[in-house]
């Protein structure tokens, strides 16, 4: 494998020395471009109390292209689909090399706090969300307890 760019080493070091509250990102020893990520659900959201696991991969042309990020924990959210794929502008067209792993993860945490059913990825969820937001929030809470908290109690 080609040498790891200094930028990735720097980012990794800073994630350790100056961690983001509510977010962890740990690279695998055997592949330093692959990170195991956890994000705490924002406290004012239906995901509060949950700890969500994600995977993050830095492609070869990072930082000229966006990291690939996916939820591993099941989550009920209009912008996140069954496979954990995330619909977020900064992960696609609006990626900028001035963004970093930490800012992308903050964006994702912010997305949990501000679901946007008008720009859906999971159409069924988005429709439920638009039809009956209260109920959708209940389901999201339920899923959080079932999938994002169970892990903690193990």
């Amino acid at each position, binding site marked *: 494998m080609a040498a790891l760019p200094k*930028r990735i080493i720097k980012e990794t070091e800073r994630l350790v020395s100056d961690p983001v509250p509510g977010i962890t990102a740990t690279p695998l020893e055997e592949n330093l471009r692959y990170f195991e990520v956890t994000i705490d659900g924002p406290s004012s959201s239906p995901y509060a109390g949950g700890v969500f696991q994600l995977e993050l991969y830095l492609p070869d042309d990072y930082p000229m292209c966006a990291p690939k990020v996916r939820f591993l924990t099941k989550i009920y959210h209009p912008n996140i689909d069954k496979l954990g794929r995330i619909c977020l*502008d900064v992960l696609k067209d609006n990626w900028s090399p001035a963004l970093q792993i*930490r*800012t992308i993860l903050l964006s994702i945490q912010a997305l949990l706090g501000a679901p946007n*059913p*008008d720009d859906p990825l999971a*159409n069924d969820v988005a429709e439920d969300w638009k039809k009956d937001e209260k109920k959708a929030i209940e389901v999201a809470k339920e899923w959080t307890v079932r999938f994002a908290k169970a892990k903690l109690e193990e």
Partner: protein
Amino acid sequence: MLQNLGPSSSNPHSHSSPPTSTPTGTSPAQPPPPIGGRRSSFGLNFLSNFNAMRSNHQPASPPTDNTHSFMSNSPTIANLNNYAMSTTLHDEAVANAQSSTTNSDSDNLQLSEPETDLLESEEDRNGMDKDGFFSVRLTPLIDHSSSASGLYFSPVIRKIKPEANISIGRYTEKNKAAAHAPQGSSAPIVFKSKVVSRSHALFQCNEDGQWFLKDCKSSSGTFLNHIRLSPASQESSLMPLVDGDIVQLGMDYRGGAEEVYRCVKMRCEFNKSWQRKVNQFNLEIHKKLKNLQINTEEPSDLAECAICLNKIEPCQALFISPCSHAWHYKCIRPIIIKSYPQFYCPNCRTMCDLETDLDEDE
């Protein structure tokens, strides 16, 4: 923000099915936003040199400056900015610690600080300028890495009063004058392409500075972020626009081999005339860069290169954008050549024209 969610499955910003390549994961919030949607900051403020700069001479006060007013209309990003605050504060502490060694420099800067408020108040929150105009700037979307490049045109700036329209159409003998209208006028926008209809589309702006786009029965279509607004020869409804949206007029004809058969692809910026004037930040950076060359003994407090995250140091080849962000030339080069002469700043998302005349001002 989430409550006044905009209409429509026909909203070109929403996906109807899991997209293969998301046209715009962008603009989660397409509801006509109350404030003139500025997507320009994107929570990037806290990354850019801007805050780091300010922190050096505003040690005690938290960044209450424009970080808020520039906030985008996207809920996710807006939130991010809030999150960013805490990060910034922390970074500031670090920056302050470092900057204590370079006092002489920061003293100079402190004198000029109050002017910043003047600069900001020139335009109100909606992005209306002091004469009561809203502005749009169109720059060709160039991508040298793709073979299908649209028509090249010089950037166009237009200003209109609230509730007014600007028509967009093909260049003809009759509207010749519009093609040579001065930047910042309210003249129609015309393109020398045969795939653009004579009356193709129009821009409209409401009282809040929110811009809209409508297809006026064009034959080859108007596309907003890759999605066609209406079938051929049918008028579309008014679609809300946000800063950074990509609009395409027509489609390439005969493979776009000849210039006149190319479609027009452009990026739109709204109500950002403030950004084009020299501001305090630009002056401060200019000063710092001068020091970088002269005074090699003191550590520079110019921020690090946002791409490689290393410090910007003397004797390195740098590129400084018109918006006053700086990177190592080596780091930024791929971005410069990708869309030359347009340059889309990765730090602040300003569109810059690298072919601008150098003797233009003063």
